[in-house]
């Protein structure tokens, strides 16, 4: 992003390596910082309320985070390509209802989950097609699909509701049980997270997503299939939102026409708090997942230390502002340091 772009415009002798190392350190520190804040927060809460990190407490924390982690992972990939997907909340809602309807009619759990994923991927493909072919701002298009999908969902659902009684027991148990304190849902989310993280880090097409986000023009000139990559990112994001919908159903067992509305803003906050910049090309899905964990943990921490839940929204917003402001100030500092180093190097060479 900005840091990588500004500093080393001069002769590329040894500074790039040094610069890169410094930048890497800052971004690593970013994920570490989120993790540290999370740990301190949980630790402090545990000290003031010893019940907080009981076996059930940890399980609840993980369960609450699972769905947001999944959606944030998909969103992070889209944001890395310098786009955004605001329709995730609506897609989550409609896939949850689709899976629920299918299970209500006596379908199998696995096929219900696959159905939700496929439906999500379909909406992702629609977003991707509009953004990459129409070359229109992602924010506007996905704002439109947010409305459209929510509207279709509301027409379809009407005043119906799916409750846990309608679902097969195996599916509901899958949403609650786990191995010791780790729920199955969290394991699934972790597997998805690791797979996507590995893909972005080690595959050519994954790296191309970063290239695309850093500079779309440069990526096009370098032969990156821009449309295809944007499409991939949106399909992945949609599919993960669909999967999250199915897991939402398993966890809460209750779906109506308002399920997931307003969720897009939480997801975007989680991604940004986790260090994935809106300007594209930086951050990682692990950071986004940590951001999601941090945001959902705040929701459990506040009641545990006796703060009223009316504070949650304000704290989330201020946290997001702090995260981007600190990020920006750090980036400016790094850029200044690099400029100074480059200047010293230049004067040393001239001397």
């Amino acid at each position, binding site marked *: 992003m900005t840091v990588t772009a500004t500093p080393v415009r001069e002769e590329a002798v040894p500074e790039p390596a040094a610069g890169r190392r410094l930048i890497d350190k800052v971004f690593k520190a970013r994920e570490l910082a989120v993790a540290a804040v999370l740990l301190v927060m949980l630790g402090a809460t545990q000290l003031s309320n010893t019940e907080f990190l009981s076996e059930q407490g940890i399980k609840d924390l993980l369960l609450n985070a699972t769905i947001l982690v999944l959606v944030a992972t998909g969103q992070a990939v889209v944001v890395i390509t310098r786009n955004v997907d605001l329709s995730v909340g609506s897609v989550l809602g409609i896939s949850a209802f689709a899976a629920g309807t299918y299970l209500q009619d006596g379908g199998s759990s696995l096929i219900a989950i696959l159905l939700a994923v496929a439906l999500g991927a379909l909406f992702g493909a629609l977003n991707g097609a509009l953004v990459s072919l*129409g070359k*229109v701002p992602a924010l506007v298009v996905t704002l439109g699909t*947010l409305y*459209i999908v929510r509207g279709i969902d509301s027409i379809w659902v009407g005043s119906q509701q799916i409750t846990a009684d309608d679902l097969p027991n195996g599916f509901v148990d899958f949403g609650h049980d786990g191995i010791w304190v780790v729920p199955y849902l969290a394991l699934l989310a972790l597997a998805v997270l690791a797979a996507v993280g590995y893909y972005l880090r080690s595959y050519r097409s994954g790296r191309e997503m970063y290239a695309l986000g850093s500079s779309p023009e440069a990526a096009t000139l370098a032969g990156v299939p821009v449309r295809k990559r944007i499409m991939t990112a949106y399909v992945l994001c949609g599919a993960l939102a669909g999967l999250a919908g199915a897991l939402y159903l398993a966890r809460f067992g209750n779906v109506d026409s308002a399920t997931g509305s307003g969720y897009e803003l939480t997801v975007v*906050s989680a991604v940004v708090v986790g260090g994935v910049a809106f300007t594209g090309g930086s951050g990682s899905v692990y950071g986004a997942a940590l951001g999601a964990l941090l945001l959902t943990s705040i929701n459990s921490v506040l009641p545990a230390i006796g703060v009223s839940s009316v504070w949650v929204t304000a704290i*989330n917003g*201020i946290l997001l502002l702090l995260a981007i402001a600190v990020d*920006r100030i750090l980036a400016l500092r790094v850029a200044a340091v690099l400029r100074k180093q480059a200047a010293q190097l230049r004067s040393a060479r001239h001397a």
Partner: protein
Amino acid sequence: MPELTKNSAVPELTKHSALARFGGAVRWDSAVGALLLVLLICSFSFVDNFGNALNLSFLIGNTLPIALIALPMTMLVISGEVDLSVGSTAGLSGAVMGALWNAGMAIETIIPICLLLGVVCGLVNGLLVTRLGLPSLAVTIGTMAAYRGIAQIVLGSDSVTDFPTQYLDFGAGRIGDTFIPYALFPFLVLLAIAVVVLHATPTGRSLFAIGASEEAARFSGIRVKRLKLSMFVTTGVLSALTGVFWALHYASARYDNATGLELSVIAAVLLGGIDFDGGKGTLGGAIAGVFLLGTLQNAMSLQNVSAQSQIVVTGVLLVISVLGPRIGRQVAQARARRRTAAAPPPQAAPST
């Protein structure tokens, strides 16, 4: 400074209108205006109860919050920024209004305090965007949550309804039996000011110049940061004013007033042909977009179209409104290129 401003902004515009004329394409904002007229004529002739004065006053009264915020939002989007916190600012201003009223203050003191609060909200957005150089989208998503959260802290889940009658009448009433709500007049004054500022002053031209190319605008001597900051503050003040109006119009101040208003405003503004990339659009188009959506919703409600289907229509319109001009521009350019096959094409690639 004014001369420089004009120089940098005008070529861009003349090129586009020339292109549009060349390809025989209609300007988007005129098209939206025409669509609004057609819709109004159809509604008057085919929709029962649409034409009576009471319904028309409802239509205008319910659309006014969106129209009010659309004025500064248009300028902000033209200068290449966006403010998603407007709905929350309106909610916060309503909540503070309710809380202060409960505390026994006079409404004549409360309203200026609310407007001042709008200044502060706008300043926070503007300073974060201009001083730290953060993307306005990320900042205002943050403040959107923060302001709404503060509103919730201020008022809790109470709702305040017992404002003085003459103010409530002003917010909800209309002049005699006509279709004109009282609140339309202040809006018309603000609209006139906004049109003059945007389309007939150096400030307005500067906004277009900033949206077209921020760097070029800065080099031609425009105080980019200061202008953007003042736009954010204006947006904050008008959002706070809308919050006050909302509380009076619906006779209820709650922390969740005007939730989701930002999306309606942005949808309407974009529908009116304001380019999200900045630098293009007219206030007339934006207002036509606002009233097009408002009229459509009113007519659909009268025809018993469910609220859910209305959401779908809004979404489809929004997608069309961004795809339409781009496709139109590409068609116009293709035509222009074909006609001037001998001469070199004026502009090869569509600006993205």
